């Protein structure tokens, strides 16, 4: 299954879906979906690299924590990310993100403020894994 992302409807906010061969790949695709709401991520350069790490045994909560940790890093440093990597060793998660500081000429999307537990699910589907939740904008 090729990694990909898409969206689903929510009245006030936006639902994101990440798909991939593994749960980890689906998490990476979900991160791309989330940052693509804020900017055209194909226009973002790999200038800055950050690492995040956390412990979580619950797969669904891990998705929310992963997305929120990325948002935190981005907002703390004034960055927009476009590329992600993630590794899982049982309950230990180690992630990376690449991006750059916001440039004045970048077309702005809408700020994602947080990933929520609404419509949260991480599940195996026919061709791989799907990770979804609603993000607050």
């Amino acid at each position, binding site marked *: 299954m090729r990694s990909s992302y898409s969206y689903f409807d929510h009245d006030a906010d936006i639902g994101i879906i990440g798909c991939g061969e593994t749960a980890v790949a689906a998490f990476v695709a979900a991160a791309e979906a989330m940052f693509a709401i804020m900017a055209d991520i194909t226009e973002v350069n790999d200038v800055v690299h950050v690492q995040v790490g956390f412990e979580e045994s619950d797969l669904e909560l891990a998705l929310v924590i992963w997305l929120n940790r990325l948002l935190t890093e981005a907002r703390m440093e004034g960055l927009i990310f476009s590329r992600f990597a993630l590794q899982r060793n049982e309950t230990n998660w180690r992630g990376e993100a690449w991006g750059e500081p916001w440039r004045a000429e970048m077309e702005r999307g*809408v700020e994602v403020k947080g990933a929520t*537990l609404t419509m949260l699910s991480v599940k195996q589907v026919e061709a791989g894994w799907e990770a979804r939740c*609603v993000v607050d904008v």
Partner: protein
Amino acid sequence: MDMSRLNKIDDTCWSVKPAAGVQTAPVRMYGSEALLAAMDDKVFEQITNVAKLPGLVGAAMTMPDAHWGYGFPIGGVAAFDPEQGGIISAGGVGFDISCGIRCLRTNLTLTDITPQLENLADALFHTIPAGVGEEGQLKFAPAQLDEVLLGGAEWAVRQGYGVPEDLEYIEERGRVAGAVPENVSDHAKKRQRGEMGTLGSGNHYLEVQVVDHIYDQQAAQVFGLSEGQIVVSIHCGSRGLGHQIGTEYLVTLAKAASRLGITLPDRELACAPIQSPEGQEYIGAMNAAINCALANRQILAHLTREVFDRIIPNATLETLFDVSHNTCKVEKHKVDGKTRLLYVHRKGATRAFGPNHPALPERYRAIGQPVIIGGSMGTGSYVLAGTAESENQAYSSASHGAGRAMSRHQALRHWRGRQLIDELAERGILIRTRSMRGAAEEAPGAYKDVDLVAEATEKAGLARRVAFLRPKACIKG
């Protein structure tokens, strides 16, 4: 929404029919039949889930502008008694803790500002940081931020942002007690480092409006409003700090609920007993975020005044009122003839104290609290006044906005940002934004009819209409 599951109490008040064999607390939904019928079934599902939470007092309620939220519906109101195992829920407060509206009345008329409207819109847009990726001029180290989290708008006034008279017309006089900055993570504080004095994105705005119509002359006079007058409304909240607190405590409270054996019908309803350590910890952090939001709107009001002063010398902007709509507040309410101390969650609902409430400033005491229903950038907003009736039936709560009728994703399929902005300009409404996507998502057509929401709010006795405000210029995130 499937209306067959509701009993009509009157034209704007409905109760949920109890399910056979299921004992739950009552659920009351306010709004006209048309507004309720147009709501997503998720609103019904979410508010009936809220009614299953421990320690709920009276009914779980939705306001006429309710729409599908996360855990709680947006436009949801629920009160809990700590003495009866009542809970505090991060989802019941919302992520943008203390998001609200500051309304400033000016000494200007539409005639005064019309020649300067383009300049004013441009200057506001360049002065007020708005939208994703924008930072404010103020930078705070975590230790400095603690003073903001304790002091709220009071802190901001001490720093020279605004005047002491502003505080009289802000909820809690600009500073809520019980803030515990130590309960706010370093991540949250670092995230807020450059976000004080910023508007944010999504449905946040700064709008220059004209008083288009007065419904209640006496109340309008007391609020200092008259037809043709210019007012400014600022809609934003606690920015990154509030969101970080919301997301972190959502996980903490979800784990606490599991540990304490609280069955959650929806994981997003993550909660803990008010008297539990986790509950108390969240309340301390939430109050810190409320102060952050109050300080943020105070700084934005100050920046707005500076812009007006530059473009239109001698303009005065006085605070009409500042009220939040994402909070949990400790309030005394009379239930079955007995006064009880309750934790009232208002998720996308405005506190609306009626006449003679002791928390109101002297000027408004005979009339009731100003309530602000913010509409879309193409339609308008309402100023209302709290009623005694609302105190009796909805813990003094009212609607907070038009409420979305269409998802953001659907809106993107219907509208293009540039085209929408041009169309609004032709109607005399100037939009300034860095995000064409954001403009399209916020299209007026994506919202419910604010007139119907305000009318239903009045008919339901939640608040009475005082004035209608028509947008002239809007700074969007």
